[in-house]
């Protein structure tokens, strides 16, 4: 730690505005952000994709990508150094001595061709210190692991290596940008513990950037909610979570899926964005989506003021940027919207033949890495019967074999041994990454029309069917002329869903269709699948790593680990009375926001 005043904040951001130019379009990504990060505190920076949270992280490090021609006004001061106008030499010294960073994906964030020990030593400058840090971040047999390459480590260990690099040189501030998003829940809990431990042991501050309020809730002292490049609400974590005073925070909390989200109602979502960029620049950026917005909200940008009305802002109190009074917003939080009930169980028809029968399925792959061949036994004797009209969720962590099972049912890979039967009508699949599963050079209309080819409908009839299918997923008919790249992530996933269900399949297979989406968007896609299921009495097999999603999407929940099914029961049984120790450990790792609402 540098010899600056002990009471000075670890980092202070004042009136920071950043404009980036991407694809020839200049946009203000951050607009007048004020934030002081005190010494030794953990600040959770929460926002949806596009809120500017990652740009803030890059700005803090002075690493805004020069390719997007950043224009910055305002100030960022870390250890007395101006991170915007300081010399390259000074900024680099701050990065070296005062800052540590942990990025989202530890696989891509570590140099694949350099031994991890060397990558740590680049930051520490000393092998003994690197080994000490490796032990400090919980890496066992540090001396052995020192000489391996990143691809030889698990995701959790890789993120610990990143943590060791980040804590090199006793930084005064660690910036963690979605450090757990790419990891399994059990590993996520460990990494969050590690961040708290780094703060406790080294006394450094932590900026934890996340899209998940519950993740921030685990370890943050203060939470800042970012919306469209501005701070919407900022305050002590328990206050912001328990007494949110900004409608956006309330919306985020309500649309978050948890283990106690009601199963029999439509999931709450935020209103979709309807305003143009210009309209959003004029008043409160959230006004077009806010259920409480009035004319003032649409006309003037609200200032960031203390909730208790004391006026002065020194950084520690609860502040928000909203014209409506706090009491009204509190009411919004308490009144759960009168969501219509939907039918989620009992549609299974016992008498009909099962939609999917899987018997004694084994799946082995030979993985060739360089000279050596290694056999992966992905499925080890799976028996699963899914009745017609049933909704089943499969939960497991990466490597559990859940996606392999889904692919086997879809017939995408031949199984090594055993039997897979799918009823007439076949299986259709919706993948995690809708962006890459839609052919980029075809228009949405062509992608959907392709599915109708075997029916030989003719041009007009096909076009009519495409329009109906788009209506069913809540998109206007004009979307059929658009290419996938011009759609948002949520819209793309809707199109993928339309493609799969245009001709109703015997079973709809969903492979983590919402894990890449923001909470509210994910909820709306889940609503769509549940609605379709009800309407078409379709059989749905839903694969996810998220227990709360599994509970919502399946009457039955199947837990898989290491290629085996270890638990299979009704959703309530599995969530509330888990029998297998693995299910219990999964449940214990799910981040929850306690006693809110």
């Amino acid at each position, binding site marked *: 730690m540098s010899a600056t005043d002990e009471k000075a904040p670890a980092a202070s951001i004042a009136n920071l505005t950043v404009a980036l130019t991407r694809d020839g379009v200049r946009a203000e990504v951050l607009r007048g952000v004020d934030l002081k990060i005190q010494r030794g505190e953990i600040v959770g920076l929460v926002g949806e994709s596009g809120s500017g949270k990652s740009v803030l992280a890059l700005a803090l*490090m002075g*690493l805004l990508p020069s*390719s997007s021609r950043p224009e910055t006004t305002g100030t960022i001061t870390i250890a007395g150094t101006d991170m915007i106008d300081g010399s390259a030499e000074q900024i*680099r*010294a*701050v*990065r*070296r*001595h005062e*800052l540590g*960073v942990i*990025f989202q*994906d530890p696989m*891509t*964030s*570590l*140099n*694949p*061709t*350099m031994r991890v020990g060397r990558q740590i030593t*680049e*930051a520490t400058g000393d092998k003994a210190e690197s080994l000490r840090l490796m032990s400090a971040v919980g890496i066992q047999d540090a001396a052995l692991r020192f000489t391996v*390459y990143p*691809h*030889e480590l698990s995701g959790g260990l890789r993120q610990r290596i*990143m943590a060791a*690099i980040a804590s*090199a040189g006793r930084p005064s501030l660690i910036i963690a940008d979605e450090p757990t998003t790419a990891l399994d829940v059990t590993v996520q809990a460990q990494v969050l513990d590690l961040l708290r431990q780094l703060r406790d042991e080294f006394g450094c501050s932590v900026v934890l950037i996340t899209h998940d309020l519950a993740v921030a809730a685990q370890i943050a002292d203060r939470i800042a909610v970012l919306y469209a490049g501005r701070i919407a609400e900022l305050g002590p974590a328990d206050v912001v979570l328990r007494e949110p005073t900004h409608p956006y925070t309330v919306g985020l909390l309500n649309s978050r899926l948890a283990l106690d989200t009601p199963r029999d109602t439509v999931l709450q979502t935020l209103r979709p964005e309807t305003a143009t960029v210009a309209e959003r620049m004029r008043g409160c950026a959230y006004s077009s989506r806010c259920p409480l917005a009035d004319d003032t909200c649409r006309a003037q940008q609200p200032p960031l003021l203390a909730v208790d009305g004391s006026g002065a802002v020194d950084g520690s109190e609860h502040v928000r940027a909203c014209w409506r009074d706090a009491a009204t917003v509190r009411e919004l939080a308490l009144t759960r919207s009168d969501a219509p009930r939907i039918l989620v169980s009992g549609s299974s028809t016992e008498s009909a033949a099962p939609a999917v029968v899987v018997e004694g399925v084994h799946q082995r792959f030979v993985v060739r*890495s*360089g*000279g*050596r061949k290694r056999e992966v036994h992905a499925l080890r004797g799976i028996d699963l019967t899914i009745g017609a009209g049933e909704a089943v969720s499969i939960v497991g962590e990466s490597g559990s074999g859940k996606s392999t099972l889904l692919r086997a049912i879809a017939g995408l890979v031949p199984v090594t041994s055993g039997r897979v039967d799918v009823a007439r009508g076949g299986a259709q699949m919706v993948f995690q990454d809708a962006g890459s599963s839609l052919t980029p050079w075809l228009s949405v209309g062509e992608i959907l029309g392709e599915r109708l080819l075997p029916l030989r409908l003719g041009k007009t009839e096909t076009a009519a069917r495409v329009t109906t299918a788009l209506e069913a997923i809540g998109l206007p008919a004009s979307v059929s002329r658009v290419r996938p790249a011009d759609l948002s992530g949520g819209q793309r996933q809707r199109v993928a869903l339309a493609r799969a269900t245009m001709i109703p399949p015997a079973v709809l297979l969903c492979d983590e269709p919402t894990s890449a989406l923001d909470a509210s968007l994910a909820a709306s896609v889940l609503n769509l699948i549940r609605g379709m299921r009800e309407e078409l009495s379709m059989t749905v097999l839903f694969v996810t790593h998220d227990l709360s999603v599994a509970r919502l999407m399946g009457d039955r929940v199947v837990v898989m680990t290491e290629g085996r099914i270890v638990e299979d029961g009704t959703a309530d049984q599995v969530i509330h009375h888990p029998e297998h120790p693995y299910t219990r450990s999964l449940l214990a790792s799910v981040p929850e926001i306690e006693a809110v609402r």
Partner: protein
Amino acid sequence: MTRFLLRRTGSAVVLVLVLTAVVFVLQAVSPGDPVKAYLGNNASPAAIAAQRQALGLNDPLPVQYFHYIVHALQGNLGMSLRTRRPVMADLHDFLPATVELVAVAFVLALLLGSLYAVSGSLRWPGGAFFRGPLLVLATAPPFLLALGGIILFYAQLQVLPAAGRGVDSTGPSGFVLIDSILGGDATEFVAGVQHLVLPAVILSIAPSISIGRILRSSLDSTLASDYVRTARSKGLRPIVVLGKHVVRNSLGPGLSMAGLQLGFMFAGVVVVEQVFSWPGIGNYLAASIPTSDFPAIAGVTLVLGIIYIVANALVDVLQALADPRLNA
């Protein structure tokens, strides 16, 4: 790593065997009679029959193939119909000149290609003034460049010679540059360089663009990668980030392309050697083709093929060294 090396060597050996089979068939179906090449056109029929028997030409084809391989391994590639000397002796005379030319051109191609890639990726000011002309030159066919080069540097400016290697190399290595250094002969070295410059530069231009463009696109994607961002966030100096994190991870595609281009350069050297009267196998080959000198053609094919296979095997090994994931 040893497993990888063994596997790669194994596949290279198989490739060479396939190549010899092709070359053997080429010889077997060739119209020239190797016996007459040995004995001359005036030999008696009895002598020819005896020689055929002695050379094993009456044996079944597989047996002949086996003998061909055994002979090739012993350095016997048959007699040239045109020069009436063993093909091996001809190759020994002509190959060093070509290898020297291609080696220098290849090093030049690597340098120009790297400069092209780095100046583009790092947006060096003025880099476009280098890349533009290089691109324009690469669009012209080599013979045109060669003629233009001779007109400009030999006829007009009179700074470079137009033909030959400048010396009758009789030194131990067969390479002018190496022999002159070994012999401590500065004049000969300078003459060697002067004669090499023009053909080598012309031979290197097209490959340098191929290597440079591939290398540039992989540099660009590496510079944008997450781990380079991590390296920067450590506060490393830009030159350290470049040297330790960017370059090594960008080499793979460039190396593959370099291996391919080396093979193409040996094939393309024929034209350049013709224009510059370079006493190498390109010229030898060009003289052998009109006279249907199949043993000579087959010999050159075999040697070039082996060089190509060895070069690409080497590239694979270098790639494995650069990227530990390839031999995990």
